[in-house]
């Protein structure tokens, strides 16, 4: 039953497999970003860990 489930996003109707496939494609796209872009994302993650994760010892890089 669950396997046949469809997910509607706007005008698109997707299966769970389609979603997983798109997620994988997105991850591969992110892997192709420039080194500089990735470091910017990393700093964002450090900020997130510092505030949301309440990890006061996290060092947020200055770039």
């Amino acid at each position, binding site marked *: 039953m669950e396997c046949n489930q469809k997910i509607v996003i706007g005008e698109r109707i997707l299966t769970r497999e389609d979603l997983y496939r798109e997620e994988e494609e997105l991850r591969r796209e992110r*892997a192709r970003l420039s080194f500089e872009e990735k470091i910017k994302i990393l700093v964002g993650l450090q900020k997130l860990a510092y505030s949301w994760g309440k990890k006061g010892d996290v*060092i947020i890089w200055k770039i």
Partner: protein
Amino acid sequence: MKGALKVFNELKREGLIKDYAIGGAIAALKWTEPFFTQDLDIFIILEKPTDGSKLIVLTPIYEYLKSKGYEWKGHWIVIDGVPVDIFPADPLEREAVEGAEETEYEGVRTKVITPEYLIALFLRTGRKKDRIKIDLLLEQSRIDSKKLEKILSKYQLSEKFRIFKEKHDGV
């Protein structure tokens, strides 16, 4: 990070190190999607060979960095807000540094260890977080399988990799 790379280029120019390359998580991140990490691992080749030596003296480098006003925070040296871990290269790391890819980061020339050597290095340390990075590299970067096999065989890591793949692929 640009500031830290400039400092290592300076160490090279000053003759305090022969060469260096970015390793660890930041190197992996060059080849995969971004993920959280805190420190910048730099593998250095010293001017004088250290093979067989029981004591590797990094004092001149530390003194130089200290004289430039960089502070130590535990095992890290913080260069322009980036905590850096400095590793004097052993034979595998030395080869990884020598074969590292030359690149630029915001206009600063640097070298980054390639996926094949990173896999070997992560396999050797073998912590959970290293295994996750091997997974990412295998999935998202272009691996030269022959080159990888050669490295793994040379450093007696083939069996470890076979076990890793067995667990990872479930075969």
